């Protein structure tokens, strides 16, 4: 029993206390501090990296927001420009149309006036011609003392002549 239940082994206890004390001393002095420092250092660097990453992300978000705003502004501006151009085009078209209409009306007006003038001129000419003819016929009547049928014939003749002449005038015009 003494072999497996080796209690009160003073030699072992002595050496154990010494060994364990030395082991503790060495570990406390040479092993734990550098490991602790290393872990703290890594922790700090990780924290720093996380901070930096967060900063970068915030910066990126800010830039994105800025770009979005710029794009929105540009889009608005483009729409405005387009609107302006359309309005100007519309106005231009309207003006051109109005001018064309006015021009046409002016031309028609002028033509109408011309026609009126021509007609008045033609009428006055005819009037003069007829007067001449009446004078001529009167002369003939006076000169020959015509009979009754001669008289009628002359008037007939004169009217016919007038018709022919009128027609001729119509053709020459």
């Amino acid at each position, binding site marked *: 029993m003494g072999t497996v*239940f080796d209690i009160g082994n003073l*030699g072992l206890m002595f*050496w*154990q206390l010494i060994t364990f004390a030395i082991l503790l001393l060495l*570990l406390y002095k040479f*092993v734990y501090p550098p490991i*602790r420092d290393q872990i703290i250092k890594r922790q700090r660097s990780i924290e720093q990296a996380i901070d930096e990453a967060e900063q970068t992300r915030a910066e990126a978000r800010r830039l994105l927001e800025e770009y979005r705003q710029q794009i929105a502004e540009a889009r608005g501006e483009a729409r405005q420009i387009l609107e302006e151009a359309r309005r100007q085009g519309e106005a231009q078209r309207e003006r051109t149309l109005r001018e064309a209409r006015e021009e046409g009306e002016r031309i028609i007006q002028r033509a109408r006036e011309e026609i009126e003038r021509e007609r008045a001129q033609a009428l006055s000419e005819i009037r003069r011609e007829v007067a001449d003819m009446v004078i001529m016929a009167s002369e003939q009547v006076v000169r020959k003392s015509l009979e009754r049928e001669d008289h009628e014939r002359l008037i007939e003749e004169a009217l016919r002549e007038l018709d022919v002449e009128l027609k001729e005038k119509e053709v020459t015009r």
Partner: protein
Amino acid sequence: MRPMLALLQQITQEELRHEILHTWETAKTKWVIPIEVFGVDLSINKIVWFLFIGAAVTFLLLFIGSRILKDRPGAYQVIVEEIYGFGRNHLGGQMGEEGKKWFPYTLTLFVFILVLNLMGLIPGSYPVTSNITFTITLALITFLIVQQQGIARNGVVKYFKSWAPTDVPARPVLYPFMWIVHLIGEFAKPLTLGVRLYANMLAGSLVIYVFLSLILYFGVFTAFISVPAAIIFYAFKLFIAVLQAYIFAILTQVYIELAMFADESH
């Protein structure tokens, strides 16, 4: 010579017993450097040698790990840092942040006991943790630290007063009774701590030896059962080695912190 002979002829029960226990029976008389101081036998024998080897391995394992520290750690550094982190995060601070100052001690205990446990699994070695003197001595150190911490942090009166609750009915009778129960418990702590580790490690080794010795006693065909069984128990003992080292370390830490915060826990 003896195992060879045993294969040829049945051995006596006495011889079998020796085969099973020879690791423990012969350790004191092997590799001896005789030293005697004031009549006390302080000879260095196989037990002490394995104690030294275990301490050296523990130290080197952690020391080398602490000398090759880099910002981008290799596998070995990660293991050492994990061991350290395990001590800091899982051993220390069981009851309060202040208890963390004791984790280097319990971590040392953990690694030291683990190394000794695992070294005991090497054939021909001596499992130091299956020696009750060794485990009880460690437990006694724990006991001393526990009492010292309890007294230092709470003061003598407060600490011993906190051993039993004061708000009990029939206080004059119950309080001393409970106090004495706690006193017994206080001494039971190191005893159970030491015996638990000792018994587990001894039993693990013994089971393996018993299974293998069956071959000597019942003949070579028993090997078909004994060897697989021994291998299974060997694997199981690997697990027990880690578990018992952890239990010893965590209980030490808990006992220390219980004493530190004795006043607050009641």
